[in-house]
């Protein structure tokens, strides 16, 4: 019945001590020991607060993880997402046995291999080949195992030419390639991966993602994947866990989880504008949100005031990509009869029943200008939102910014053309 569960986490919590560790260490230890002696609970376990980085706490102890429960079935790829400090790394560290939990337990089937950071234990004085052996052994392989896979590892890394050169002569990219290659051939039953894909060039990232897909789909192994790259999470994972302040905030489908995560990001800084009071994004039926699936329609609502003193003006929005390049724009000038009616306070709503933006993060800039062309105000960075990749084509291909700025709804057809005589 539970035979297909590869890893099970029950009530996992981890407490950390803040501030300078060292002062009062002995007194706390003595207190703990005294409590233990009387058969009481550890007095420091009762205190502690949720881990909200931005809020000043009163206690020296915080819960970096609190009561995490989940299980992953064999062959599943669990994506773990959450903002910095949400407890992702702590969870991975406990899973990979780098540090122990404070309470709760983890049960797993098979070996757990962790790729928390590639190149662990690489020694600059050793050659590439020697480092492959050392790194492999650190990750838990035996010499025999490494020897049997050595050619494949070297081939996968694409560092054949430098394999007998000391690692200190390697470029950082080459070190990563070689290190990832070792890890890729580790073949544990459960693989834990953290942000490795953030390094290396595009070609190698593709190779790395492909290898991870092989690992989970082809070989039926379980993968836990932690990343900030929503595109990678969506294309690789079959299940997703969203952590927030060390607590389980969402567990379930990947697209839903990504949306949940993106909608709960830290609120943006205050709007600095003379005329714009407020800008907000809503779904077509009026629910405020700042993450949308591909193709999902949305409204932009802008509340302005004090514009009645101007004659003949237009209000528009620019949608900017992460590189601050204009992707597209829209304004009252493009919609018939929507120019300002000269009220003191006005709500302008731009409605887009469908959109073709490629999955990525976007920023909205607001522009207020005269019909004749002169600019009254430009509000950069007024609001940000995300477009989430979804399998709109039903073919399992998830788009990201490598594919362009927009997606098309098209159809592809292939027919045979006989050789013309």
């Amino acid at each position, binding site marked *: 019945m539970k035979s297909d569960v590869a890893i099970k986490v029950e009530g996992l919590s981890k407490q950390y001590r803040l501030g300078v560790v060292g002062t009062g260490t002995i007194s706390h230890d003595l207190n703990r020991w005294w409590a233990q002696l009387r058969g009481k609970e550890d007095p420091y376990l009762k205190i502690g607060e949720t881990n909200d980085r931005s809020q000043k706490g009163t206690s020296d102890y915080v819960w970096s993880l609190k009561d995490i429960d989940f299980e992953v079935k064999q062959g599943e790829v669990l994506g773990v997402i959450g903002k910095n400090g949400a407890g992702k790394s702590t969870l991975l560290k406990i899973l990979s046995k780098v540090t*122990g939990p404070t309470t709760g337990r*983890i049960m797993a089937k098979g070996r757990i291999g962790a790729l928390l950071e590639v190149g662990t*234990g690489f020694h600059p004085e050793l050659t590439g080949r020697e480092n492959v052996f050392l790194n492999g052994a650190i990750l838990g392989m035996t010499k025999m195992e490494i020897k049997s896979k050595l050619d494949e590892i070297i081939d996968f890394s694409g560092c054949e030419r430098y394999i007998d050169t000391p690692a200190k002569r390697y470029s950082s990219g080459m070190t990563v390639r070689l290190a990832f290659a070792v890890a890729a051939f580790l073949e544990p039953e459960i693989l834990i991966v953290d942000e490795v894909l953030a390094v290396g060039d595009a070609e190698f990232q593709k190779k790395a993602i492909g290898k991870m897909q092989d690992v989970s789909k082809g070989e039926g192994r379980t993968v836990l994947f932690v990343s900030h790259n929503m595109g990678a999470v969506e294309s690789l994972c079959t299940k997703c866990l969203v952590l927030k302040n060390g607590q389980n905030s969402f567990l379930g489908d990947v697209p839903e989880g990504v949306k949940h995560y993106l909608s709960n990001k830290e609120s943006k800084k205050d709007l600095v504008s003379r005329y714009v009071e407020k800008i907000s994004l809503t779904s077509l039926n009026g629910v405020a949100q700042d993450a949308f699936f591909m193709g999902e329609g949305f409204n932009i609502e802008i509340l302005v005031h004090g514009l009645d003193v101007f004659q003949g003006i237009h209000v528009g929005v620019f949608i900017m990509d992460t590189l601050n390049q204009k992707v597209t724009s829209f304004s009252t000038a493009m919609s018939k009869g929507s120019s300002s009616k000269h009220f003191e306070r006005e709500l302008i709503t731009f409605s887009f029943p469908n959109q073709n933006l490629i999955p990525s993060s976007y920023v909205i800039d607001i522009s207020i200008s005269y019909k004749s062309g002169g600019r009254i105000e430009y509000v950069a960075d007024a609001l940000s939102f995300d477009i989430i990749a979804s399998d709109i084509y039903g073919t399992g291909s998830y788009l990201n910014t490598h594919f362009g700025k927009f997606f098309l709804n098209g159809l592809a057809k292939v027919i045979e053309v006989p050789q013309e005589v």
Partner: protein
Amino acid sequence: MTEDSGWDIIIEPKSKIFDLKIRELIRYKDLLFLFVRRDLVAQYKQTILGPLWYFIQPVLTTLTYTLIFGNIAGLSTDGLPKMLFYMAGVTCWRYFADSLIKTSDTFTKNAQIFGKVYFPRAIVPMSVTITNLVTFGIQLLLFFGFYGYYKTFQNFQGGIQLEVVFFPVLVIIMMFLGLGVGLMLSALTTKYRDLKFLVTFGVQLLMYSTPVIYPLSSIPEKYKIFILANPMTGIIETFRFMFLGTGELNYGYLGYSALFSFSLFVVGLIVFNRTEKNFMDTV
């Protein structure tokens, strides 16, 4: 608990006290030797004198001791040539002291790598002890060089005894002793950094309660028990007996050293294994 069946790995806050994790250590034996290799290669790459440093250190120490303790202070050397007497003591003591000092900061020194990947942490101090064995071997060769010189040119009468066949056992006892103390100290220094200063200092003091610069025979009967409480005493005395033919081969003393070393190693490993779990939070 039937519920636990079928799980290969269970991670819990506290592990069993007497879990020495020997099986795990055996599984990682390849890593042990790769670490040894790495340390040997890395140690002397790009130094000009390279392994010559192995010789310079004991020679200078021996010369200093000969001058100060032998000639100026005029301490007894059991009738042995002063150079040989001190070198025997220094070689053994250095191995023990080096193993102890270099393993005592295992956690702090390897925090980087320990923070990223799990393998049985005890592999690291073990590899250090084995790496030091190579240094010890080279210094032993130096000792034989001096031995040969005194034998041929200085008409040195003493010599290697038959019991020398048990020399490997002596080395093993010494290994366990250095490792045991090192394991225990490394667990403690993670939490209480002050101990680190005490270690280098303490090792130096400890040397004076070991027959390195004096023979056991020169100790008055009423103080002997204090010197004998030091497990290194039996080892160094036996070493001198095996190779130079003086000193005392007392199986009681040696047995005490062996028992002491082995128990210390086991206790050290237990303390070490308990620390390895959560040291990342305190380091």
